[in-house]
């Protein structure tokens, strides 16, 4: 048999990517479950192509670029819902990468991570909404284009909040830290819920509406000059999210192989030994905390702008646990794993559980029978989309018992003093 007859891995990957893209773009059915599978199939090349140990970067990089820059926007044009899903995945991927620094690299269990996300979201909500204008006076609300400035401000505000929380509590051992961060998450939520009096800062449980969006003129121009029906604003968010994901991944990689990354690893593995080797404990932990918080703060700004509405509900304990489930599922400390975890959990939440609920509701409505038992008997309270805690709980337990290092375990790379900076 001629050796050249079988194309190599790379060729298969390219062929698969093209075929799936074509199928997705041409024959999107509108059926939730089938489209979800198709969408996941479209994301699969991202996972394979980013494994540079097995896949040649000269093939992997173009495949990544093609899927992210071409296939996903095209599918998004067909059905804006999927662009939205991609944006959500991106937001959570960056959040997960931020938490990965704290939990994965430095080994500090943070159960109130979403609080920093809330800080960023409320920051943009207050400075850019009519509600904030009433509070802050002249000059406000800021226009949508201040978004990029505030996103950078949010990096520092969130990092500052992280440091402020970290200073008193980082001297604690791991389990104390977990519960203090959990409480901190609650505190932020209680504050968001109750700071509508004496001075109305957060507008309480009603939340803040009418938040400005960035680059609305650009979206408007694109709509008038090209396709008016298409949601250009969503595409702009997609571009912004994609950039931020890229920045986050690069930052994670660089931090992982930097000297601070080595210090994090050292305190994660053995605090006392690390201290004995001259790693300053509090400062190193503080940097981890602040860096993770900065990621979350920036994404908070983006989240608020995209939703144009924030309320305390979006920042409850469930969300913190959701992000934790992402990184535990993917693999603590493993960048590819964390990204995959973010994708899987977000899609599970946004699509799989919802379409399962819809499917079951359909079966109930039609009175479908299986072994003489009618689905009409299924209690109406049972909707898979309402039981995400149960699923997260099972994921956390099962992963810790059977694959404590995640689906894509982080690798241990030996690094000698000579090439410490360049290996990655």
């Amino acid at each position, binding site marked *: 048999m001629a050796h050249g007859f079988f194309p190599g891995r790379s060729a298969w990957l390219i062929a698969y990517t093209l075929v799936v893209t074509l199928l997705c773009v041409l024959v999107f059915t509108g059926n939730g479950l089938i489209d979800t599978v198709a969408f996941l199939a479209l994301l699969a090349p991202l996972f394979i192509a980013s494994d540079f140990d097995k896949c040649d970067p000269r093939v992997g990089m173009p495949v990544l670029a093609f899927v992210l820059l071409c296939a996903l926007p095209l599918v998004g044009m067909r059905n804006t819902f999927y662009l939205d899903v991609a944006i959500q995945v991106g937001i959570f991927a960056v959040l997960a990468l931020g938490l990965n620094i704290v*939990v994965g690299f430095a*080994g500090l*269990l943070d*159960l109130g991570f979403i609080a920093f996300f809330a800080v960023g979201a409320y920051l943009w909500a207050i400075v850019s909404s009519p509600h904030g204008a009433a509070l802050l006076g002249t000059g406000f609300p800021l226009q949508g284009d201040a978004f990029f400035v505030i996103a950078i401000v949010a990096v520092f505000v969130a990092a500052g909040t992280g440091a402020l929380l970290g200073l*008193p*509590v980082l*001297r*604690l051992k*791991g*389990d*104390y830290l*977990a*519960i*203090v961060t*959990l*409480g901190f998450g*609650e*505190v932020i939520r*209680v*504050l968001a*819920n*109750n700071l509508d*009096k*004496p001075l109305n800062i957060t507008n309480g449980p009603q939340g803040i509406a009418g938040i400005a969006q960035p680059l609305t003129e650009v979206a408007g121009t694109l709509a008038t000059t090209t396709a008016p029906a298409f949601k250009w604003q969503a595409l702009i968010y997609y571009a912004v999210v994609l950039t931020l994901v890229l920045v986050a991944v690069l930052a994670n990689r660089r931090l992982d192989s930097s000297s601070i990354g080595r210090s994090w690893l050292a305190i994660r593995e053995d605090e*006392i*030994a690390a201290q004995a080797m001259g790693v300053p404990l509090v400062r190193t932990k503080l940097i981890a905390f602040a860096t993770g918080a900065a990621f979350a703060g920036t994404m908070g700004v983006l989240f608020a702008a995209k939703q144009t509405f924030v309320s305390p509900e979006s920042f409850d*304990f469930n969300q913190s*646990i959701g992000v*934790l489930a992402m990184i*535990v599922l993917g693999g*603590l400390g493993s960048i590819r794993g964390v990204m995959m975890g973010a994708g899987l959990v977000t899609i599970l939440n946004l699509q799989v559980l919802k379409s399962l609920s819809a499917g079951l509701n359909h079966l109930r409505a039609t009175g479908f029978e299986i072994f003489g038992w009618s689905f009409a008997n299924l*209690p109406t*309270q*049972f909707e898979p989309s309402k*039981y*995400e*805690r*149960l699923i*997260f*709980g*099972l*994921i*956390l*337990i099962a*992963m*810790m*018992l059977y694959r*404590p*290092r995640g689906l894509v375990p982080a690798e241990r790379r030996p690094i000698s003093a000579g090439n410490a900076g360049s290996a990655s």
Partner: protein
Amino acid sequence: MSFQLALELLPPTLADGLILGLLYATIALGYTMVYGVLGLINFAHSEIFMVGAVVAVELLTYVLAGSPLHPVLQLALAMIVAAAVSAALAGLAERVAYRPLRRSNAPKLAPLITAIGISLFLQDAVRFVESLFGQFIRPFPSMPFFDIPLPLTPNDSIPMKSVVILIAAGAMLVGLRYTVNQTRLGKAIRAVATDRMAASLMGIDVNRIVMLTFLIGGALAGVAGTLYALQFGRVDPFSGFIPGLKAFTAAVLGGIGSIPGAMVGGIVLGLIEMLIGTFVPILTNNAIGTEYKDIFAFGILILILIFKPTGLLGRPSTEKV
């Protein structure tokens, strides 16, 4: 605020604070005992407490309602069943999610993460089961006996349930103190808490003692759940979270790992919380309302951890390499 008003509000506030404190103490014992023997914070404890409360409320609503038994006996029965269910659940959690991790060389964070997993799972599992039968927020059934007012001061009275809770929770604490200090089992628990390795060399079956510790802690949580539902009149799948956090704060306040510490810490926290919840809104003209009492309780936790990490009664710990 007039001095007169403060004087009038003080006795009922103190009584409520003491009750809340005893409940926190009963829950906190579960955290502190497990921490004592394993050095692990059992995050799932708050949900084990919640399940106890739900079981007791359901029993009183559907099984014991209308029975000729005296209300106190009904409550006692519900309490025993709730304690048994909670204990079984705590034991199951230890068997399924903690023990396997002790054997394998799991990462340090692993038991904490499985504990959170169990917590989440129990919340939704209870919500699912409850919503099969209607609302998942369950009111405590009406039992007029527990609302009989008893005079506290000339102007004030406390309901019968307060006295019942005081006696029941107090008896639990005394009983536990006796068990830990005077019995063979208690001696074994203290031995394992002091040094697990040495205890096993002395012929103590460490896994059995750890299991028993979980069972005792779970049973106490079940009792506390029943009493908590009686005091606050309702229970839902998420009502374990905040009391659990507070009880943990109480355990840390008293010195985690210390049994008398958990009792003292619980009572102190209950009193502080009630006093703040009553008097701060009055002092600040409602600018800082009762909603903030959780934040105060939590601020106390952070302050203790900064200034006296070993708590009020905890022993100073030395780190071993």
